[in-house]
């Protein structure tokens, strides 16, 4: 037990050192020094820092609004042809935001695929450290599925684990200080999509288990359920609460980090905030989202 705790602490310290080094390199979060890929080329240059917070918040969180107001040409960290393609599909109004969001989601998906392939390739009898971490995550979530749904519903485990890993990596990817990197969950569309998916899966499962009339009479039969109207409203409020919880926490962390790191041109404090919001809050919210998605299913099908 003591050894396991020590190794987690070691990983944490290594992570903190890497984070501090990256932040110092990228100029204490004000992006005064830019490192990254621009039009397929590696960029390493000083940019002029501006301390107008209002402008900065608009640039960070309402990027299309910003470029419409200032009339600058947006800086694309990626392929220009793809951006032109997006501009034709989505129109001028929300091209940059959509492009950024889809690029980040693609990065997260590729990362998940990459990790899965690497772990699968190195499956050993005496597992390595990353394998232990992922096996821990998998078996803990599998235990929760067994406790909530019972042994015969184990086929829900892959869905739950995928949901958890996707939200977890999405919440943590904003910590990497590369220009243009942001959490995909910061955009409302992603949590809302995940929430609608979770509630839809609840109802599909209930229709499968209880039959069509057996499930629908909870909402349509006023003799069996006198509060049917309230139940219908509360199904919609489930989507709102589950998705806005994730969105509000991630957006809140991002706004606080932006404001604080532009107020203090100090290196260590934003790193601590970044670790708190990225690792602690991100992990807790990913866990809460997954557990709620699981218990909604459990409440609906267990009678």
């Amino acid at each position, binding site marked *: 037990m003591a050894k396991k705790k020590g190794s987690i602490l070691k990983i944490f310290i290594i992570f903190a050192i890497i984070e501090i080094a990256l932040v110092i390199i990228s100029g204490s979060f004000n992006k005064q020094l830019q490192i990254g890929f621009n039009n397929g080329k590696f960029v390493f240059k000083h940019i002029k820092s501006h301390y107008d917070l*209002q402008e900065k918040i608009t640039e960070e969180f309402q990027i299309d609004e910003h470029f419409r107001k200032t009339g600058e040409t947006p800086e694309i960290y990626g392929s220009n042809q793809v951006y032109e393609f997006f501009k034709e599909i989505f129109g001028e109004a929300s091209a940059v935001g959509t492009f950024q969001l889809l690029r980040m989601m693609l990065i997260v998906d590729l990362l998940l695929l990459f990790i899965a392939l690497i772990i699968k390739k190195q499956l050993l009898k005496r597992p390595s450290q990353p394998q232990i971490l992922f096996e821990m995550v998998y078996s803990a979530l599998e235990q929760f599925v067994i406790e909530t749904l019972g042994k015969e519903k184990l086929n829900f485990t892959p869905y739950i684990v995928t949901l958890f890993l996707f939200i977890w990596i999405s919440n943590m990817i904003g910590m990497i200080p590369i220009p243009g990197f942001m959490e995909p969950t910061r955009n409302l569309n992603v949590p809302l999509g995940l929430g609608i998916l979770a509630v839809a899966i609840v109802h599909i499962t209930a229709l499968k288990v209880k039959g069509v009339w057996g499930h629908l009479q909870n909402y349509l039969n006023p003799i069996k359920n006198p509060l049917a109207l309230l139940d219908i409203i509360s199904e919609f409020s489930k989507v*709102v609460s589950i998705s806005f919880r994730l969105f*509000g926490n991630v957006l*809140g962390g991002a706004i*606080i980090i932006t*404001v604080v790191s532009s107020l203090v041109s100090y290196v260590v404090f934003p790193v601590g905030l970044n670790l708190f919001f990225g690792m602690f809050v991100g992990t*807790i919210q990913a866990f809460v989202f997954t557990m709620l998605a699981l218990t909604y299913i459990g409440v609906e099908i267990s009678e």
Partner: protein
Amino acid sequence: MELSVEVIRIAAYLGAAISVGLGAITTGVGSGIIAGEGAYGVMKQPKANEQIFRTMLIGQAAAQTAGIFALVISMLLIYGGFDVAEGGWYRAAALLAAGLSMGIGAFGPSLGAGYSGGEACKSVARMPKHGNAIMGNMLIGQALSQTSAIFALVVSLLLLYSVPNQPAGLTMGKIILKSISLVGAGMAIGLGTIGPGTGIGFVAGKANDMMGRFPKERSKIMRTMFLGAAVSESTAIYSLVVAFLLIFAV
């Protein structure tokens, strides 16, 4: 109607005073609860003196987070350079609303975090062997109850930095409408965090208490705490949605 700089300054100073004045009330009460339970615990279990003391200090520091948020907002309001007449009535209303939001919003979370920390001190005094587990659980519970304070902080930062300047040539009716809706947004999230903050603090406190009595059931207690706290938070999230609508959609 033209507006002089003085009105915006008046709004900023009033907002700063409201923010830190209201925000300090329950921060003090919460820290006091923790200290009281800590002292009582030392009386009961003098051998675990150091452990109880450590739990008390860390719990008090975590319980004062919302008060520190309120302090940051009032510092920003005083020294943040809000003395340009361009913003007009929109800016004045937004500054007042930012103070209201964070000041009232610090109420519930600090009370909840104080209750949670107090129960943790009691629990450590009962079972000093599991002190570290109880302290970890206390920190997680306090972080959960501060989530609603973070919502209030986000709304007041948005009110400070994301409200547009008042365009020229508006009718008086339009100006009143937008200004009052900004104040309404601040009130919505401020009042809306009181209940959830206190409730989640109660959940976390009960979980800490039970962890001292039945240390074997640790994982089950923690899981129930997460789930219950997450569901209790949903009304704070409805308030956040209404506040966003009032800021950005009106």
